[in-house]
């Protein structure tokens, strides 16, 4: 048989076979990767793997959320610490007198006709502290930790000083605290007011709804005093 007579048809057929085979290979590859063509066992394995992966991802998400929560809480704790420190600072400022303070209280007013000594003022202030005064001022000089009440002399006349500032009459002692308690502390029988009455001094005592006490002008500075931790 003539060689050429069979080669051409076979070649044509083989071209088509080649096309068909490659197409079928490609299609079969897609079929094998398609989920609907997978075996049940493989699908079960895949589902199991995927659900395992999902579980681990959920756990990871949980961990991350926990971390986030902890970070938020610690952030909030930081804010809380700052707030606490600020409120402590405010409270200590009131105690130190480095901050203006408002509140109900009592005023004790001495007129120029009241014969008083600086010790009388000290006694009254001591009595007021004892009666629960929280902050005090004399003629707008705040009584602080290191306040000095003393006297000065000039041209044969004596004057009372508070923190070295001469006090002019009327001398007003303002005390913030429970006004009733403060009043009772001063006016109890045999108390300081009774004693002053012996010297013909009759201070006016008034309970006030709202008092404003100024801040001291200079802060306390400690040069040698150390706290317990630093010694």
């Amino acid at each position, binding site marked *: 048989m003539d060689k050429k007579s069979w*080669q051409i048809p076979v070649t044509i057929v*083989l071209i088509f076979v080649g096309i068909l085979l490659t197409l079928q290979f490609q299609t079969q590859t897609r079929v094998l990767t398609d989920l609907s063509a997978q075996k049940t066992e493989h699908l079960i394995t895949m589902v199991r793997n995927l659900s395992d992966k999902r579980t681990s991802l959920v756990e990871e998400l949980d961990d991350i959320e926990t971390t986030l929560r902890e970070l938020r809480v610690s952030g909030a704790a930081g804010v809380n610490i700052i707030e606490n420190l600020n409120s402590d600072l405010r409270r200590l400022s009131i105690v130190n007198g480095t901050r203006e303070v408002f509140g109900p209280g009592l005023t004790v007013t001495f007129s120029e006709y009241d014969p008083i000594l600086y010790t009388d003022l000290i006694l009254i202030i001591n009595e007021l502290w004892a009666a629960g005064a929280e902050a005090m001022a004399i003629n707008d000089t705040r009584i602080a930790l290191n306040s000095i009440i003393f006297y000065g002399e000039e041209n044969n006349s004596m004057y009372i000083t508070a923190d070295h500032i001469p006090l002019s009459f009327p001398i007003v002692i303002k005390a913030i605290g429970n006004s009733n308690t403060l009043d009772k502390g001063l006016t109890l029988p045999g108390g300081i007011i009774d004693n002053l009455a012996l010297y013909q001094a009759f201070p006016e005592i008034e309970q006030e709804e709202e008092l404003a006490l100024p801040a001291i002008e200079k802060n306390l500075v400690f040069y040698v005093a150390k706290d317990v931790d630093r010694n």
Partner: protein
Amino acid sequence: MWLPILGLLFGAIIGSAISFEIPLLYAKYMSVAVLASLDSVFGGVKAILEDKFDGTILLTGFFTNALLAALLAYLGDRLGVDLHMAAVFAFGVRLFQNLADIRHHILGKTLKDYNGHKRIS
């Protein structure tokens, strides 16, 4: 001899190059068609070896077998009969038969001193 092999390679290149995707639904029919066409090819090779080759028969057989196999498989699916299994079985058997015949012929030619064209089983 080399021309058909070149043709096969050429067809493979064309098949790789074209971006035609057979829908997965028809992949099964396509596989039956491929099986039928392979059977035709091996039948053709056997015919060449037996000196009974006819190009027309090969070409018509190739296309009609492939198309009919695919159509029968499709029809079987429509009718609820797994006719593609029948096609796979029939063409598979024929394919192996043809391959066996081809093997015998080649062996027969290479062992010419073995009683001429006597079959070796």
